[in-house]
């Protein structure tokens, strides 16, 4: 079953056509890479998929439901979740609370429950702590759970952001340059984590990345864009040797 289907997606900023005629379909459990030179429109595509930008044309389906006309927080409820190129954590909140925020919509106690600490409040809060701790454990962050997010080392912050995205229980995870700013060892570690979480959480992943070793190493399928248009699709081997891709990256 297709988790994410994008048809004929396009957006214009004034006269500039930033993304044009973009199609993609991601199946359950797939790991797809989205690459392209700087300014090709990769992050713009993510912003379209998550509702930060409103597309000029085309349609986006997540779990066969259209995201058009939905706000970013409603799109999350359809089953997609993302991380950001420049990490966006809730810096002055604890690591645990960063995850608990993402459980917000799976709790249901109201204002009354908040004030009188009803049974429902306690049950839901305790459960959130438990699930969050388990999730942190998977990422090896359990021991930091009472630290403020801003005090984590860079690599761990990246992981926390991924963990937080997972906490919304998505069917598809969108990772925007997860290895940006990491050293080779951290990148290696990240690759392991991505492989692991894909197995453990039964999700599909679409990732933007510049680190070719990571992309070629873990992606099953790669889509290459340039100037907002798809110039190549295929498995890592095919992409590596595709003349259009080489031209896009190295110029004529």
């Amino acid at each position, binding site marked *: 079953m297709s988790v994410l289907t994008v048809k004929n997606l396009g957006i214009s900023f004034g006269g500039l056509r930033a993304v044009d005629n973009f199609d993609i379909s991601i199946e359950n459990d797939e790991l797809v890479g989205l690459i392209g030179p700087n300014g090709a429109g990769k992050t713009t595509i993510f912003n379209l998929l998550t509702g*930060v930008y409103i597309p000029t044309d085309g349609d986006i389906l997540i779990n066969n439901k259209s995201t058009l006309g939905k706000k*970013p*927080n409603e799109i999350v409820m359809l089953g997609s979740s993302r991380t950001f190129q420049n990490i*966006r954590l809730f810096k002055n909140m604890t690591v645990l609370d960063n995850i608990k*925020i993402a459980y917000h919509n799976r709790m249901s*106690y109201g*204002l009354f429950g*908040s*004030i009188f600490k009803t049974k429902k409040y306690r049950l839901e809060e305790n459960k959130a702590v438990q699930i969050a701790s388990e999730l942190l454990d998977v990422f090896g962050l359990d021991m930091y759970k009472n630290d403020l997010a801003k005090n984590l080392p860079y690599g761990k912050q990246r992981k926390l952001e991924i963990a937080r995205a997972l906490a919304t229980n998505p069917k598809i995870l969108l990772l925007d340059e997860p290895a940006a700013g990491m050293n080779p060892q951290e990148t290696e570690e990240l690759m392991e984590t991505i492989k692991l979480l894909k197995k453990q959480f039964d999700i599909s992943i679409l990732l933007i990345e510049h680190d070719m070793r990571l992309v070629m190493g873990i992606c099953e399928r790669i889509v290459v864009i340039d100037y907002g248009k798809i110039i190549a699709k295929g498995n890592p081997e095919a992409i590596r040797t595709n003349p259009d891709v080489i031209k896009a990256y190295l110029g004529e």
Partner: protein
Amino acid sequence: MDKLKQLHKTLVNNKFINYTVVFFIFIILFLLINSGVINRYLSNLIIMILIMIVMATSLNIATGFLGQLHLGHAAFMGIGAYTAGIIGIALQDVIASDLLLFLVATFGAMITAGFAGFLVGTPALRLRGDYLGIMTLGFGEIVRTVITNLKSITNGAQGLSGIPRIMTFPIAFWTTVIVVTLIFLFMNSRHGRAIISIREDEIASESVGINITRYKLLGFILASMFAGVGGSMFAFKESFLAPISFNFIKSVEIFVIVVLGGMGSLSGSIIAAIVLVFLPEYLRDFNQYRYLLYSSVLIIIMLYRPQGLMGTKEINFIKIKTWIKSKYTKVFLKGSD
């Protein structure tokens, strides 16, 4: 004896220790006021401090926790004060109990102030940062002009007089305790967390499924409603209201308390309210320098300690107790060596 032990245990039990401390503060102040050790002037000052605590903790919801620059908080206080004052005048012969009259008037004040918060918040919260600040400031000035010009209801610039002077220390104290407790409990729920996450990063908050429009509005309305409570307390304490009491300078005064205490710390707001209301009054000769002090404090804090006295931390008597206990045990162990 067993019963006494049981009582002692309940009182210093972790869960209750905060309430116990609050209760003892009340008893001590109450006895001091009733026995005349604290004179009328000072007890009035204490009530003023309590009002400023309500104003600062409520502004803290919008500015400290939600992270929105709000420069018109006094306007909501004014709306609450006038509502409560008008209800108080109308019903003083109908409702015999002072407490009941206060409660009814405060309820009215919360509704009008909350509604005003809704009216302003709905469009205003689309704006960011300084633009929102300017808009709330503009709204505050509009409210002041409206109050001044609606002579038939508010008696205009001359002011509204004849409000029953029913504010006593116990009513003010417990109203403040209830407001602060409600805000504290609210902030420690999923709703409070959602509000804080908006302060931290709006875009990230939205990306994990928080309806930021809804929570911004909720935070803004709650802040306004509790400002209405502060206004009601003020009306029944002063017995006289003039539009000038709720101008931009008043909004800034409240704002300074929140910033000094630490944006996002309720105990910080409480301490800062005590310090900033007490200090200038205590140093009477100093009074002409009062705002010079306020403004210098504001600038110096922003330059050298932008997070305020407390940052986002809270004073918690449970932690203090554990801390004292650990010290005590250490001393005890050393002694037995």
